[in-house]
């Protein structure tokens, strides 16, 4: 998998460097923090998605991979690309794509994609054992819910209120649910 870094600012986007070293990423991330420039790294061959670079460390926060890199169906990409045509505003659609980019780093199985009555974009994994949904609300905050059929009742995990940051628990649940059918 090759990787490039994009620098996105009010004046546009440009490729900073293909195969940029992590130290260089950190340098640009620090500059971004001071100048409202946003950096993304692009995993070109594996996912064709963007994932944000953490401004402090220069690296992206991702769950551990659950399987080999995989391709997702064209229908899924089309659905993801159709958000703005379905009334989702650009920033919100961007936030949904950003979340998918982070989730996709773990190579999960392909999720369902839904739009809720509240306007949230929701990724859903519903396997024989695990149910997991991750929703991006208008405004960019998150809601999520995880249920394990084999766990005692009352042991579900998830958000009670919209969250600005996704907790470690979220990534653990994403890894479990995404791995359930990832081998197919």
């Amino acid at each position, binding site marked *: 998998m090759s990787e490039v870094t994009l620098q996105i600012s009010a004046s546009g986007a440009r490729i900073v460097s293909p195969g940029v070293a992590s130290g260089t990423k950190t340098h640009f991330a620090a500059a971004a923090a001071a100048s409202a420039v946003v950096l993304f790294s692009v995993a070109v061959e594996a996912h064709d998605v963007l994932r944000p670079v953490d401004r402090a460390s220069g690296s992206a926060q991702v769950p551990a991979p659950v399987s080999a890199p995989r391709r997702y*169906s064209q*229908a*899924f990409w*089309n*659905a*993801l690309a*159709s*958000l703005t045509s*379905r009334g989702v505003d650009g920033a919100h659609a961007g936030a949904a794509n950003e979340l998918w980019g982070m989730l996709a780093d773990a190579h999960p*199985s*392909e*999720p*369902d*994609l*839904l*739009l*809720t*009555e509240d306007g949230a974009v*929701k990724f*859903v*994994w*519903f*396997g*024989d054992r695990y*149910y997991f949904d991750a929703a991006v609300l208008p405004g960019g905050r998150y*809601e999520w*819910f995880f*249920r394990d059929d084999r766990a005692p*009742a*009352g042991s*579900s*995990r*998830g*958000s*009670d*209120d919209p969250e600005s940051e996704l907790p470690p628990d979220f990534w653990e649940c994403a890894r479990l649910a995404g791995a*359930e*059918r990832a081998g*197919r």
Partner: protein
Amino acid sequence: MPDGDRLAPQAVVLRIPAVTQTVLHVSGAQRQPLPDVFALSSGERKLSEAGHRVLVSAWDRAKITVDGALAQRTSPVDVVAFSLRVARVDAVANELAHPELRVVEDRAGAPAEAAPEVREAHVGIGGLDRDPEGHPNRKRVRKEARAALALACDPAA
């Protein structure tokens, strides 16, 4: 039985959910999307947010046909009915230690224009807007109850 009385465990209720989500993509690699069968309607949500206890609308299968229940919906979109035995609701309520989760007679909650025999068939499911302690603001706990009930449902024939 008057409003508020619990239905017997062997009774079957029909639930016709509000359509609260649009499916953009279904992955063929997993189960069909879990329908949010017990999502509160916007009116029910407003009531709950105003501090009122909400009974989610349902129908006593012994007193109304599936078509009769479907006919009460004014929504222009296609709707589907689900059936659920009251004993399953009681089991979920026990598992979650959720005493407010129960099916009760609710003629008063029937659509205003409903005929008397239709009104007679209307029931309500309580506790779906509250956690077991009666608080309305623990969304995860409410979702868990809704998910458990949705998994216990079958499409109504």
